């Protein structure tokens, strides 16, 4: 810290007068005590030193602010609703004991959808497979795109910066809150699917993609692992959204740009003619989480996915930092 006051070795509780919130003259007194302006920072209120735990306070405030927004709660509701809809649809389709579409729609619906009626746990996999291509990244794009630009738009950014939150610290806090949102959003979808699956369908031992059978508890452990992998798959778009968010003062604009990029990338990823660039698209290895359900687990695709996400986080995180720490805050 720049201001290591020699006599304030302890974190330095504030003058007692502080606790009342009123401005007593302790502040001014302290200034005279700190009087002879030897250092550049010596001055009336200079006794206060940065507190070690304050960064955690900023993170917590950031998380609370993100999760208390109505918009965040609406996104969670949508993410919880998708598995519910899928579950009810499958239940209605198979009400008379029939199987789902009999393989005729093998690649029509999300992966794992055929197994749901036999084992409710598969609704978790199906639910994540259904929300990962669009709903989850869209939600992350909205939250990440709004993170800086939304504050700039509302003008609150300037007050956070003169508080002073510190630009790097604020950016890190923003990214941490975006990552927390990725995890929370995935868990909302997964837990909703788990509850609906257990409520509507029989559950039991899990048949892996390799044809072997594992116990229900082992299956649930793999479901948790899959949820974590899905959350990790969103790290890249989170960093991309954060970067876009530092470019503009319009929250809506940043959200729309991020979601638009997501759609563009999904389209590019679906054209076989564009296979040259596809391995570099952040969506390309998303569905590799299904490899968790092989026996033994195949890690190649998962490793590529995680590596690509880390690369995106590094590239766009640095770009966001470079932009945000040097830009003029005029909003």
């Amino acid at each position, binding site marked *: 810290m*720049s*201001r290591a006051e020699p006599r304030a070795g302890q974190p330095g*509780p*504030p003058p007692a*007068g*502080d*606790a*009342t*919130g*009123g*401005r*007593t*003259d*302790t*502040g*001014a*007194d302290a*200034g*005279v005590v700190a*009087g*002879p*302006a030897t250092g*550049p*920072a*010596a*001055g*009336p*209120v*200079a006794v*206060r030193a*940065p*507190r070690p*735990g*304050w*960064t955690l306070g*900023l993170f*917590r*405030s950031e998380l*609370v*602010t993100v999760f*208390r*927004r*109505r918009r965040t709660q609406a996104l969670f509701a949508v993410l919880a609703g998708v598995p519910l809809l899928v579950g009810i649809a499958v239940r209605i389709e198979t009400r008379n004991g029939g199987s789902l579409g009999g393989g005729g729609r093998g690649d029509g619906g999300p992966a794992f959808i055929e197994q749901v009626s036999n084992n409710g746990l598969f609704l978790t996999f199906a639910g994540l497979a259904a929300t990962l291509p669009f709903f989850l990244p869209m939600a992350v794009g909205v939250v990440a795109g709004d993170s800086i630009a939304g504050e700039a738009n*509302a*003008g*609150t*950014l*300037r*007050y*956070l*910066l*003169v*508080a*002073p*939150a*510190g630009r790097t610290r*604020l950016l890190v806090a923003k990214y941490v809150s975006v990552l927390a949102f990725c995890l929370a959003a995935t868990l909302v979808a997964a837990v909703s699917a788990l509850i609906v699956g257990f409520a509507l369908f029989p559950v039991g031992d899990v048949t892996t993609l390799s044809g072997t059978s594992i116990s229900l508890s082992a299956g649930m452990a793999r479901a948790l692992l899959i949820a974590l992998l899905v959350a990790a798959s969103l790290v890249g778009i989170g960093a991309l959204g954060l970067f876009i968010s530092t470019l503009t003062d319009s929250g809506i604009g940043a959200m729309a740009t991020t979601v638009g990029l997501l759609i563009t990338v999904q389209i590019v990823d679906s054209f076989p003619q564009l296979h040259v660039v596809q391995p570099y698209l952040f969506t390309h290895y998303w569905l590799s989480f299904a490899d968790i359900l092989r026996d033994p687990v195949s890690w190649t695709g998962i490793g590529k996915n995680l590596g690509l996400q880390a690369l995106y986080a590094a590239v766009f995180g640095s770009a966001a930092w470079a932009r945000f720490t040097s830009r*003029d*805050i*005029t909003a």
Partner: protein
Amino acid sequence: MAQPSTAQPPADVVIETRGLTKQYRGTLAVDGLDLRVPRGSVFGFLGPNGSGKTTTIRMLMGLIAPTAGSARVLGSPMPRAGRSVLPRVGALIEGPALYGFLSGRDNLLRYDSADPTADPRTRKARVAGALDRVGLSAAAGKRAKAYSLGMKQRLGLAAALLQPRELLVLDEPTNGLDPQGMREIRGLVRELAADGTTVFLSSHLLDEIEQVCTHAAVMARGRLITQGPVAELAAGTRGRLAVTGPDPAQAARVLAVHGVTGLTTDGQRVTGDLPADPPDLAEINAALVAAGVRVRGFGLERASLEDAFVALTGEGFDVAG
């Protein structure tokens, strides 16, 4: 024990800029500003809308980087020393900005948690104290979205008062307030100044500056026109002698004899400029009485800051730069 520190020259000045310049796409928003704000003053930063006041404040607070020149706040260079300077500065910049979905209290809690020097243990008490200070305690639990403009302005002020500050930078603090609210804010500013806080107050309202400020600077079109103690600025233009009574024509005649020039009569009131070597006002009064002029009011009217401004810029105050 507590005396205003006057010994160290650098400690005397809380804001000092040298040639501070900001250029936006070819237009000079601020042009070579040399500003000195003495410690302990209530400093009025005056200028029409668009004259570069807010741009200057943003540079002082490290939000935007100057194109040229330098700024020192509380003795340290900005924006480089922001982390040590800004916790000692409370700021209201270009109106309040709030999280509409949070209550007034939660807004302050959030801003306070962004301050690295704020003690989380006293946070609640300090927030309650700041709310009380601006008269918002009763509405503290309401969502900020439902606040009126005046309440938002008060909440913004409360955010600046969360900690004891050495310097308060208040950009148009009475915007959106009713006359009663304006009076309260002026009272608050005087109170803070009495505690030893330097208050840097920007405004486009002359009478506001005149009522509370000890020092002032005037900006127009990005340039600093003048700065100094308010009394000196106003003294730059000489006052006018004013005589009120039922015999304005006779009064004007007597005044003209005594060398008063530029006489204007407005109903029962005659005003005029005293000569460069002014005679004793008592003599003039006696002469009026001797001439049988009935006088109801007699006195020298001090030049207002507005007169000073018009004299300095040669234009009306409300012309946007």
